[in-house]
């Protein structure tokens, strides 16, 4: 080798890139050259800085779950297709029972709060069904006293089976839905971790609750842990004395599910009766797919201490202003604490009321669970009274994927007697004649069994010609209690007109004060009102006239129907006008001013 070793040659030797000849030559030279050795050491030290990034990597459980979830979703059900789209509440169970031999780390206080001492009875005899179903139970082995710490990388992930049962109770007034689902979880005897993820959903993590439906005395849900630096994820620590499948109920609140009612009325050709159909549309923007869910809808105002959507978006589930109250909720029924005036026994509030009075069978929509599939089985929406709240239960189950909406028939009532009425009131509607349709939510009108929720009402008229429908109008109605009259404003009428014309105006009966100034007078106006009906049906018209003062007298002449006072400063004429005809009447209005009022109080 001639001269010193080059930097290139030293790099090749350091990283096993040199040929045998070059390596031998460089090594021989290094033995005799301190300068080259120093250069080699400097290079080696510099390359050692690469080790700064050579640290073990733990795959976050969230990522592992996403991989598992992605695989699961790519199998036959690619409901939402997007591999990276977030998971809605995916449950994975991490059982540490088989990992107890792994490294036991000290338990950091922030990651694992102290565990309340659990009952440590001798291992019970397991039921045959549980033993038979798994055959893994070691009934004679003692369960560790202290729950194992579960480092993220040591959790064994198993995708859980699908939900066995699902119930949604949607509280529209508060953007709040109570979700109750039942799953068959496989427990191993010992300590089990159950992991729930709610990324990209609107689930309120503070509301999570889990209870075993069987072996309740042998399965103890000890705590719900929110691991640090892992968002949208919580783990239940569960001590199980049984091994095998156990049904559990998981309850939580979510936002993003909503429902609204709407109605379609069809008037008979003579407009004396109406067929009214009610529908409910359920929309799911919660981020989670809900399959085969029993759907229940609650009408009534709910008072929330905090908005669920806000809770769901918080980076940490704890630290909420309400967790103490919410964490104390053991069962879904305890929701009642959120009601302003509700019964404090939530189960009673939700389920214990009598008077279930299903009514109205619907057609059209339906199908058991799923869009566009299944048999066209009519669904029934049953209603229950809950004090001032009402609970509507949709018959059967429904599948409502994320971002989908679904319309369900609610009720149908035929031959509801209705009154069609036209009103003219310049103070309220200017020069337009407005059309109204009224009926009462009572049994005489084929209704009255439940209140009717807020919603839009569209009214059509059957023209009688081959069943053709003509649009009559639409409006939004507020909650209609039982027994209350509903008056639907259908908009401006085109075929019924009211035209007031001022025919004459004059002043008279002047009064003077001692100085000869005018101190009072009468104004006398003569009005002619013409009501024209160009429809083929007789109509009833109310004409309101306001006088702007309470000191007035009036005389009517002509075909004015009936006239009655409407307050202190107005009158109302009620006329029945035959088809394709008009009615004309006049009135003379005398209003009193100044001292002319004195004797008329």
């Amino acid at each position, binding site marked *: 080798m001639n001269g010193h070793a080059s930097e290139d040659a030293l790099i090749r030797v350091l*990283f096993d890139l040199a040929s045998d000849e070059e390596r031998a030559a460089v090594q021989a030279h290094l033995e005799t050259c301190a300068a080259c050795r120093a250069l080699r050491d400097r290079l080696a*030290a510099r390359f050692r800085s690469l080790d700064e*990034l050579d640290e073990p990597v733990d*795959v976050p459980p969230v990522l*592992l779950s996403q991989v598992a979830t992605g695989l699961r979703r790519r199998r036959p059900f690619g409901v939402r297709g997007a591999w990276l789209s977030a998971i809605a509440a995916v449950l994975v169970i991490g059982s540490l029972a088989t990992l107890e031999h792994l490294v036991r780390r000290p338990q950091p206080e922030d990651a694992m709060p102290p565990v309340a001492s659990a009952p440590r009875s001798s291992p019970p005899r397991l039921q045959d069904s549980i033993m038979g179903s798994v055959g893994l139970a070691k009934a004679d082995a003692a369960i560790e006293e202290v729950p194992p710490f579960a480092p993220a990388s040591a959790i064994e992930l198993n995708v859980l089976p699908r939900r066995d049962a699902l119930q949604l109770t949607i509280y529209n007034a508060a953007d709040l839905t109570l979700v109750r689902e039942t799953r068959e979880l496989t427990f191993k005897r010992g300590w089990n971790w159950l992991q729930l993820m709610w990324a990209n959903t609107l689930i309120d993590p503070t509301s999570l609750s889990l209870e075993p439906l069987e072996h309740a005395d042998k399965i103890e849900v000890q705590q719900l842990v929110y691991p640090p630096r892992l968002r949208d994820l919580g783990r239940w620590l569960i001590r199980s004395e049984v091994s095998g499948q156990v049904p559990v109920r998981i309850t939580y609140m979510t936002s993003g599910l909503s429902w609204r009612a709407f109605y379609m009325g069809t008037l008979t050709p003579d407009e004396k009766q109406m067929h009214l159909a009610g529908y409910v549309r359920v929309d799911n923007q919660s981020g989670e797919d809900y399959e085969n869910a029993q759907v229940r809808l609650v009408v009534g105002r709910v008072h929330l201490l905090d908005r669920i959507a806000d809770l769901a978006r918080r980076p940490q589930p704890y630290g909420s202003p309400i967790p103490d109250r919410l964490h104390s909720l053991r069962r879904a029924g305890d929701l009642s604490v959120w009601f302003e005036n509700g019964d404090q026994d939530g189960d009673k509030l939700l389920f214990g009321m009598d008077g279930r009075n299903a009514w109205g069978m619907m057609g059209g929509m339906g199908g058991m669970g799923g869009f566009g599939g299944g048999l066209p089985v009519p669904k029934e929406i049953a209603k229950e009274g809950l004090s001032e709240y009402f609970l509507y239960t949709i018959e059967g189950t429904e599948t409502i994927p994320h971002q989908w909406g679904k319309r369900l028939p609610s009720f149908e009532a035929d031959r509801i007697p209705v009154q069609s009425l036209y009103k003219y009131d310049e103070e309220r509607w200017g020069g337009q004649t407005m059309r109204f349709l009224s009926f009462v939510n009572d049994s005489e009108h084929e209704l009255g069994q439940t209140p009717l929720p807020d919603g839009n009402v569209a009214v059509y008229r059957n023209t009688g010609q081959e069943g053709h429908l003509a649009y009559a109008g639409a409006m939004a109605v507020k909650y209609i209690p039982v027994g209350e009259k509903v008056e639907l404003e259908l908009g401006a009428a085109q075929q019924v007109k009211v035209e007031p014309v001022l025919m004459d105006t004059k002043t008279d009966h002047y009064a003077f004060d001692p100085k000869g100034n005018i101190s009072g007078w009468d104004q006398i106006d003569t009005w002619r009102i013409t009501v024209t009906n160009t429809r083929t049906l007789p109509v009833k018209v109310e004409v309101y006239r306001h006088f702007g003062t309470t000191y007035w007298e009036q005389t009517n002449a002509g075909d004015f129907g009936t006239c009655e006072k409407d307050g202190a400063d107005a009158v109302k004429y009620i006329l029945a006008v035959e088809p394709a005809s008009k009615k004309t009447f006049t009135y003379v209005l005398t209003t009193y001013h100044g001292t002319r009022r004195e004797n008329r109080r």
Partner: protein
Amino acid sequence: MERSDRGLLEAHRGGDPQAFAELVRRHGPAVLGYLRKMTGNADTADDLFQETFRRVHEKAHTLKSDRFKPWLFTIATRLALDGFRRSRRVTFLSLDRTEGPDGDGQTGADCLADEAACEPVEVMAKDERRRQVRQAIGGLPPRQRVTLVLAYYQRLSYPEIAEVLGCSTGAVKTQMFRALKSLAQRLPEGVGEMT
């Protein structure tokens, strides 16, 4: 006895739900570490990680030999290189993650809380060195970066890297040498190194 990677993949194809989880558990950390070093972005690495195992799942039938690891890194490398090409057009930055740019999930507070690095000055110095190393590696052309990361961090042999990249061992060595020569100028001085 521990099942081989190939055995697990076959079991997965046969419907064993645990087999794939075991594969992910076994190789996931290496793949994620590789992708984080390749991309320098934790979010991107997470995405590529998922995509890698999705492709493993989909292409499981194409693995004919027992060389699962090179095959796995071939998939990850292709995704990473595709990512480079895309990232020239647009770069996504996550605004809601607090971790460092190297994607190690460590915040400054975490480092300070680390028992092994209780001296703030030391923490800062270490952070600075890490930043310089990341910068040096990030400045390498993609194929040199792949070669260096696979060889140095993933401990793949040069023939294995050649298998991943689909080239000769000599070509791999050339890429490696060029990468090292470049890094020799860019890497921070080693601890205790005198200049």
